[in-house]
Each structure stands twice: as C-alpha cells, then as structure tokens.
C-alpha cells in the first residue's frame, strides 16, 4: 500500500437530525497498522460518526473512502466485504450457537458459502476457527454455548469474529465497556498486538481514558459534532480545548494513574 492512499479517509462528514448537527465536517484518516482513538464526551457525535463509517447510517454530506473506494451508501455487509471487521458497544453474537460456530459463521460468509446446502458446517474451516479462537485466548471455550459466556469473553469472541475475514480495518465501538479493569487492559493489548502483527488499522471509541492513552497511536477528539483536536496522546493531553471539554465532565486524564495501570 502506498503512503499516498490511507487505509481510511474521512472527509467533511456531516449528519444532522431535525436541524441539530450531530456530526459536522469531520475529516481524518487512518493508516494501516495504526491505532486511532475517537473520543469525546457524551453526545459528541462518536456513535453517529461510527455508524456512518460502518454503513448503518448515511451521511448528509462528506465522503468515507476505504482504500480509495467510496463506501457512502453501502450497506454494513458490503462494507464488511471490503475488509472491515467490527465489534459492538453492546456485544452482538449468535447466542444459541457455540463459540466455535460463531466464528464459523463469519468464515462461511467470508468464503461465500452462505447458500451452500450440502456441506457440513460443523467441520467448516474448523482449524481456522480454532486458530482465531486461540489468537484471542478463547481456545478452551470453543464448544461452549455463546449465551453462557461472561461479558469479557463475549468481547474477545467478537474480536475473533471480526478477524475472520482477514480485515484491513477494525472498527471497535467502546471495546472495553462493561469490563473489569484487568480485562480491559488485556483486551486492548491483545488488539494492539494483533493489529501490529497483521498490519490492521484500528479505529475505536472509548470512554476509559486509561485505555485510550495507553494504546492509541493517535487520538481525535469530537465535541458537539466537530473535530476539536487531533494528534498524539501527548499532544491531545496538552490541548487546552480538550481539557476544557473534559473538565466539564470531571474526567481529567491522570498521568499517575496511567503509569500505575501499565506497571
């Protein structure tokens, strides 16, 4: 991939609901292997922005380009076919199927065997499914019904499912929401490792600033639908506008805390 075409390029993304601008003129880009955090207080437009990237919502104006291809107006499943894996804020899995079957569904879809009525699904890419589960540390849970899993395990399963189509880009909406601190760190380390190994770009939104500042290569900050800051963690941390926004919420980033968590 040349340096000239970024993995993801967002230009002037705008969406309004009944006269209220949810997202206004947001532009940013993401390189392969880069981990980019999208942060902002509640109601900043993170979710709207995310939904426009993954095809659940159509922007009023602006463009999203994935590897140079415009994705505006494409459905989530078409965007997935372009090589985008995603996880949800509230996990969405196939609850009555086992952990392995969840991954196998994604593999079946990836290999375009969805309408095959004859083959044996339980044996479908069993090895590959196992490898993906091992990768996220879920190898021992393969035969468990998904509905029995703890929340943190569901998040890891979602990651395995998201990796099934050998994605170039991962979209993760609050990947650590609802998890214990220890689990958060583990999951994000895992994500970061996989992203670097496979040179996958990761865009994630997150409330937990510890997670953000530890793992993001770069951070963009939204407030009231507008991009107010962009840069490395250090740059963003020092940005007075960002501090003002977060002071309002009482969520100032604490450097000592970060060091404590990473030790």
């Amino acid at each position: 991939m040349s340096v000239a075409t970024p993995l993801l390029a967002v230009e002037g993304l705008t969406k309004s609901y009944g006269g209220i601008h949810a997202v206004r003129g947001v532009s940013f880009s993401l390189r392969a292997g880069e981990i980019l955090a999208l942060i902002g207080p509640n109601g900043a437009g993170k979710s709207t922005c995310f939904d426009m990237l993954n095809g659940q919502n159509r922007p009023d104006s602006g463009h999203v380009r994935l590897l140079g291809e415009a994705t505006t107006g494409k459905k989530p499943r078409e965007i997935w076919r372009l090589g985008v894996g995603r996880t949800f804020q509230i996990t969405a899995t196939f609850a009555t199927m086992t952990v392995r079957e969840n991954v196998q569904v994604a593999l079946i879809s990836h290999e375009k065997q969805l309408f095959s009525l004859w083959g044996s699904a339980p044996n479908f890419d069993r090895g590959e499914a196992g490898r993906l589960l091992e990768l996220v540390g879920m190898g021992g849970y393969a035969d468990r019904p998904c509905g029995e899993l703890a929340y943190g395990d569901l998040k890891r399963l979602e990651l395995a499912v998201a990796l099934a189509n050998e994605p170039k880009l991962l979209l993760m909406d609050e990947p650590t929401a609802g998890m214990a601190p220890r689990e958060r760190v583990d999951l994000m380390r895992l994500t970061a490792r996989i992203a670097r190994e496979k040179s996958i770009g990761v865009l994630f939104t997150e409330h937990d600033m510890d997670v953000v500042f530890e793992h993001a290569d770069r951070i963009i900050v939204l407030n009231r639908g507008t991009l107010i800051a962009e840069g490395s963690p250090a740059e963003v941390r020092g940005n007075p506008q960002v501090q003002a926004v977060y002071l309002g919420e009482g969520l100032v980033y604490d450097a000592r805390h970060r060091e404590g968590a990473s030790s």
Partner: protein
Amino acid sequence: MAFYVVQFLTGLASAASLFLVASGLSIIFGVTRIVNFAHGAFYMIGAYIAFTLTERFSGAFGFWGGVVMAALAVALIGVIVEMVLLRRIYHAPELFQLLGTFGLTLMVEDLVVLIWGPDDLVGRRAPGFKGAVDFFGQNIPSYDLFLIVLGPVVLGILWLLFQRTRWGVLVRAATQDRDMVAALGVNQKWLFTSVFAVGVFLAALGGALQIPRDAVHHAMDLRIIVEVFVVVVIGGLGSIVGAFVAAVLVSELNAFGILIFPKISIILVFLVMAVVLIVRPWGLFGKPEAAARKTPGLTVNPWRPLTSNERLAALAALIVAAMLPLFAGNYALTVGSEIAIFVIFAVSLHFLMSVGGLASFGHAAYFGLGAYGVAFLAKMAGLPMIVCLLLGPLLGCMGAAVFGFFAVQLSGVYFAMLTLAFAQIVWSIAFQWVSVTGGDNGILGIWPEKWAASPSHFYWLALGVTALVTIALRVAVFSPFGYALRATRDSVLRSEAVGINAKRIQWTAFVIAGTTAGIGGALFAYLKGSVFPDNLGISLSVDALVMVLLGGVETVSGGVVGAIVYKALNIWLVSQTDLSKLVLGGFIVLIVVVLPKGIVGMLEMLAQRRRKASPPGSSLLAKPIESAE
C-alpha cells in the same frame, strides 16, 4: 347521499365492538407479549354469560347489568387463567403461550356446547334501543347509534386510564420496554395479571354487546379472532388509538366493499392488511419493536448432528416403521401415511420457525398450494402421478417465493400476521373462485395410480418421501446455509456485520420451507383423493404451529416428534369421542404446563441433567466432541 351516510354509520357501529375486542388484545400483547389466541374464546364466553343473565333478569337494569356482570365474570375467569396457566409460561420460548391459549380455545368451544346446548341462541334486544331512527328515509337502528357513541367513549376512558393513572403509566412503560419496568422494581406479576384482566374484560364486553345483533353460538370465537388480529396488526400492536382507527377502517371497508366488490369483501381486508404491513411494517400507529435485551433461549443446548449411535437408532426406527405393513391393517396404514405427511408439513415449518426464527401463521397455504398443484396437473392436464408429485409442489414453491419475499421484510408477530394474511387470501381464492377450484366442494378424484394404490404401497411411498425430506432438512440445518440461517435468527445486526444478507437468507429458507410443505400437500392430495380449501385454511396452519411447539421449538427433531404425537392423538380422539376438542385442548394445556420446552426439549433436558449428574469432573470443558462428517 343519505344512503352513503347511513352506510358509513353502519360501518362505525360494527367498528365499535371490533374495537373493544381488539383493544383488549392489543393491550395484552403490548405488555405481556402474549399472542392471546383465546381472546375470541373470552369474547364468546362473554356473549354466552350475558345471554344467560339478560334472559334471567328482566328490564333495563337486567339487560345492562347483565352485560356488565358478564364482562366482569369473564374478566375473573381471565385472572384465573393468567395466574394458573400463563404465569407458568411467560419465560417459555416465544409463541409457546400461543400453544397454551390455543388449547384453552379448543376446550372452550366444546364446553359452551356442553353448558349452553348446541342451538344458536338469540338474545334480547337492548331496552330503549329496539327501534330505528329515520334519517332522510333511511333507517338506522338506534342500537347502532348507541354503539357508535360507545366506541369513542371507551377509547376516551382507556386514554384517561393510560394517561392519568399510575397503573396506566406502568402499562405504557411496560409496552415500550418490559425489562425497564422490571428493573424499576414494579411488581410485574400483578401488573401482568391486571392487564390481562382488563384485556379480557374488553373482549367479553364486546361479546356481550353483540347479543342484540348476533346469534350466540359456539363458533363465534373463530369468526372474530382472525378479524381482531387483523385490526390489531393494521393499527400497530400495543396502540389503542391504532386499534380504533383500524377497527373503523376494516368495518368501513366491509360496509363499502360490498357495494363495489360484492364477491371479494372477505379478501379485501387481508389485502389492505398486507399493503399496510408492506408499507408500514409496524402498523399504522405502531413503533418498531425495541430489541429485546434478553437473548432468547439462553439455556438452549447447542445443536449438534446425530452421533453414529443416534443415527443407527433413527435408522432402526425407520426400519420398524417400514415394517408396519407386515402386521397392521389398511386403516392403520392409511393413518400412518397421514402422520408421515404431517411430519413433512411439521418439519418444513420447523425449519422456518426453529432454525430461521420465523413463525409463519399461514404455512398451510404452501401445503395446500402443493395439493392444488397436483389437483390441477392431474385433473386438467391429466399428467401421470409421478409427474404430478414432482411438479405439484412447485406451486407451493412459487407461492412461497412471491409471498415470502414480502414476508421476510418483517419479523416477529408482524411476520406471522403477514403470512396469515397471505394464507387467507389464497384460501379465499380457493373457497370463492368456484369455477376454477370447485370452491369448497373441492377437486375430486385424484387417486393414486395402481402402483401406489394399495394402502401399504402408498404408506411406503409416504414414509420414503418423509424420510428423505426429513434427512434433507436435517442436512440443511447443519449445512453452511443452516448456520447462516441460525445466525440471522440470533442476531440480524451481527449477521449483517459479517456480510450476511439476512433477508435473502430468510427468503431462501421461506422458499425451502414452502416447497417442502408443498411436497407434503402433494402427497396429501393423493392420500385423500381430493383437495379442498381446508387444505390451506387457518386451522391447518395452527395445527402445524402446535406440532412444532409441542415437539419443542428449540430442538432439531421437535417437528418430527410433535407431528407424530399430535396427529396420532388427534386422529384417535376424533375417532373415539365427539368431544375431541375438549380432550385435545386439555392435553395441550397440560403439556404446556408440564413440559414448557416441548416434548423433545424436555427429554433433552432430562438427558443433560443425567449426564451432568454422573461424571462430576468432565462436565463443561470436556463436552463430547461432535461427530460430524
């Protein structure tokens, strides 16, 4: 002009009682998510009790007091039903409650005949509302005027109840988000009971108020229940205003439809419902259903293909079944063929309902289309039997392709109702288009050719086809397509996020299920030597639902077991007693209470419990490896 005004007013009068019953159903569904099939039965009991009371007590007080007392009495019955039966099954799989209320309906139909006798009863006219009012030379019954006023009054009272009382606020909250109300610490039990009582009261009142207009008889429930479902769905589930508007719409359609299309008024209503659902998938005033937070069936055992031993057992069962002609007589063989055909029918619905999560309320349409396909080919084209059997189901396939395309755009109860509407349209065509279909006199003389004519040969044919179909569908369940279908059932959001076109997967499943049902219908035509509109009627669709639910909707083989048990029991009871509905209904209610997971579901649970109990260490992580091939 006066004529049209009066016609309009007449429509409004019919709308009033329809609204009463429909609003009750809508409230109950909104809060408890129960599709109360017994709603028509409560309407009927209301009419019967009101008949008795108004005959017994004379005068205006006797009449109006009787009507209200009857509704209250039935509401009390409703409370008992809710506490004794429904409370036990709120947590059962979706639609299982339908099975329970269906059982109740069957029982009530026989019970009213036992209590009130078989004759149609004609009650008193309402005191003070016996005559008619002259309107520019047209007569309007004064009772109609009373009903026209009553409708909006009841709407107003309900509105006040929901807007101005704490109870109403809770009900509205529960309608929008059940889990939230539970989280708020509201006593859900009593909220549900009271809602059910109010809904039943409205149904019974609607029935009681029919006394001056209608005859009271034991088939009233079925006459109203379908229409009420239509009203509730057009209006939007859980919306009282929607129920009112839809009741008016449906009644005016009937009133004016007979002037313009006198012969198809019955289809008109279903056509309108289909159009409304296609254009507004949640009805006129409904809101999109909030995604349930509770994932359905968390306790489900993971599905797995049969182990080698289980396959041998299934094969052994098939061989035993194939040996039936060696020791059974012609009647047993014909019954065996019929059961086999119903297994095909049930597994086809099971595929759609259990694997795809799409509960069709009109699956008989495709069964019947398969049968009519055979009838047309055999009688009009004179094709040989084997060709008819192969091509006949294609009519079911085509019907499923067309209707399924629209139906899978919806989900849940709306999907169920749209499939019901389509089935009713097909049924009405078969019933009323006498010149082509023979109407309810059917098409006769479709007997099997010589090679399949003897009961044992036909039995082997039916058994063989059934085995093939069952195996094929089972293979499909564990095929990549089957996984994709289950995925769309569990989470459309996640399916789309892994590149699955959920609608197309579901449409394909619908066509597969419809075609399979058509195969059953084709065989059925030859078994009976004739086809009738019955073969695509509502009661057959309900039979299919009952078979799947009885067997266990969360299991892979529930369809097979449910069909065998239900059909065998049904045939035996009809042969043994005139009160088969009472006994069958009682049996179904019992099953619902004792085996809330269906027969196979319960067996699996027992087996699992035993497995868990015996080797304490080897339980969770070391589950037996699936032996698939």
